[in-house]
């Protein structure tokens, strides 16, 4: 038995060595983000590489928890990371990100002050996250199922749409949605019992819990969905780029707003490239192309939004001051609260099973 095994071992090690041959280049720029979320658009990467000489390499995550774990277990691997502002504080407290030298990022000057100076992204007078894009989580409807667009969140509870309602399979989003439906502050939920009761009464209406944008769009395309929670950027993409009968509704009760920032991890090897990349990401030129070609959330850069065509969803709807008054921006959530919300959400799902 010994001889063939030795041969096998030798062959295996040769093969492994061959597999490992791809070496790392000097001007590599490693970006960690959701897949298909702006930074990895082929045309954008090509344009940036040509202009800056850096070679962009992407890695992806599928949940914020995973993003943090990747940062924890791969120190020095990434140069730019996309972090939801509600998580920036946690990443900072764990020492995962470093201060960003905003003087190297000229486009920051055009970012709206309330975002640029947001306490979620800044600490001790230093910036740890550059505001990139923001958007809303509210409801979207299948236009074929409505003669007139709803204005209230209560449409989700309407008996007429029973079995054609969807919710995202996400505890935090569900609980914050329940908070808005019960007229509470999403960042300071006083009466969780009311949220639970409100969601419990919604569950029998629900057909499915969606996980991906594509799933949501498929359900609309096959006529299985009347109304459900959705993201503004996704709804605009579904409408403008995929020509699906989707309309985004900003209910009078309020909407959840979120802000995504770009940060530089501790130990990043290409800080200079990172600053250049972040600058490019909030540049009006990139943003207008992203929104018109693909469909995007709203840029944090006011000049970038102003450069959009006048009819653009992100300019007309989200730029409306009446809408701005209804937005409740997501603040950081403690681990204890997250776990409490998850337990509540799991209980609700088991009850309705």
């Amino acid at each position, binding site marked *: *038995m010994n001889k*063939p*095994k030795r041969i*096998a071992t030798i*062959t*295996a090690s040769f*093969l*492994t060595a061959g*597999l*490992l041959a*791809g070496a790392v280049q000097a001007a590599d720029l*490693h970006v*960690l983000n*959701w*897949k*298909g*979320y702006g930074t990895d658009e082929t045309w954008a990467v090509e344009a940036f590489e040509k202009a800056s000489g850096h070679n962009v*390499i*992407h*890695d*992806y995550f*599928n949940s914020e928890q995973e993003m943090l*774990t990747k940062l924890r*277990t*791969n120190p020095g*691997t*990434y140069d730019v990371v996309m972090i939801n502002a509600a998580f920036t504080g946690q990443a900072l407290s764990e020492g995962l990100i470093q201060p960003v030298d905003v003087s190297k990022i000229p486009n920051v000057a055009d970012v709206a002050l309330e975002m640029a100076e947001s306490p979620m992204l800044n600490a001790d007078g230093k910036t740890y996250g550059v505001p990139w894009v923001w958007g809303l989580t509210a409801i979207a409807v299948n236009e074929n199922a409505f003669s007139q667009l709803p204005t209230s969140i209560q449409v989700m509870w309407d008996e007429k749409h029973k079995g054609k309602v969807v919710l995202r399979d996400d505890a935090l989003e569900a609980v914050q949605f329940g908070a808005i439906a019960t007229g509470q502050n999403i960042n300071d939920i006083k009466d969780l019992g009311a949220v639970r009761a409100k969601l419990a009464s919604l569950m029998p209406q629900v057909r499915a819990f969606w*996980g*991906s*944008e*594509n*799933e949501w*769009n*498929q359900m*609309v*395309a*096959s006529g299985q969905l009347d109304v459900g929670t959705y993201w503004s950027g996704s709804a605009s993409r579904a409408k403008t780029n*995929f020509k*699906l009968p989707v309309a985004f509704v900003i209910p009078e009760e309020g909407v959840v707003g979120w802000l995504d920032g770009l940060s530089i991890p501790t130990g990043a090897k290409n800080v200079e490239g990172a600053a250049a990349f972040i600058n490019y990401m909030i540049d009006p030129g990139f943003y207008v192309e992203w929104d018109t070609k693909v469909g995007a959330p709203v840029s944090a850069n006011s000049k970038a939004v102003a450069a959009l065509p006048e009819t653009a969803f992100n300019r007309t709807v989200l730029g409306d001051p009446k809408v701005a008054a209804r937005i409740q921006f997501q603040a950081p959530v403690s681990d204890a609260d997250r776990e409490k919300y998850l337990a509540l959400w799991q209980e609700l799902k088991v009850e309705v099973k």
Partner: protein
Amino acid sequence: MMGTTRLLELLGRAFVGLMLAFLYLPIFIMALMSFNASPFYQLPMDWTTSWYEALARNSGLIDATWNSLRIAVLTTVIATILGTAASLALRRYVFPGKRLLRALLFPPIAIPWLITGTAMLIFFFGVGIGRGLHAIVLGHVALALPYVIVVVSARLETFAPEYEEAARSLGATQWQVTTRVTLPWIAPGVVAGALFAFAVSFDQFVVSYFLSTPGEATLPVEIYAAIRKGFTPEINAVSTIIMTVSMGSMLLAARFFRFGGEK
């Protein structure tokens, strides 16, 4: 009497046909949708080959496919050899702790891959193995091993140790006994074990996902990473090509090799 046998045989063949239809229904749909223009698989069909054109330009997806193939082949070779050797020992010899060794095969199968993958990421990070293709192969072989051992062992159960003893009494060395008597008998089990190992590795996303270095993804990783935004029919297109090629090569293999245990 003969008539009943014929009828039963006919029914049996029809049943196998039905099973194949069931097994291939989603594969057929996958292939069909790679020719559908709608990225949301909308019906009725709107025929196009544009996803294949998009795929040809998508070097990331193609590289990932090659990576997957290389890893899967390597995993299959290592896992089949190590697994078959271990199965032989578990069948042939009597020693204390054998039950424990058998029971130890279940944790990797029972514990969801997500947890095993996370555990590997943390452990490999902690001991300095790190991420990369070597770590992926390390993980894949480990995940495939229990499958190989269970499958080969099932075949070995049907093997009478007397055969080995008879050969030995005729003066054969241990090496000759293994290669001339035992291995030919368990060959179908080894082939099946290898096919399992390949499948486990080729479809394994969680472990690869945690252990791959940026820019060196595997196909399942590309697919899994796309799950939030949803993937495009390019994935269907690449899957269809893989299926067609594997089907062709498998049927070719069946044409030239005998491994079904035909006597």
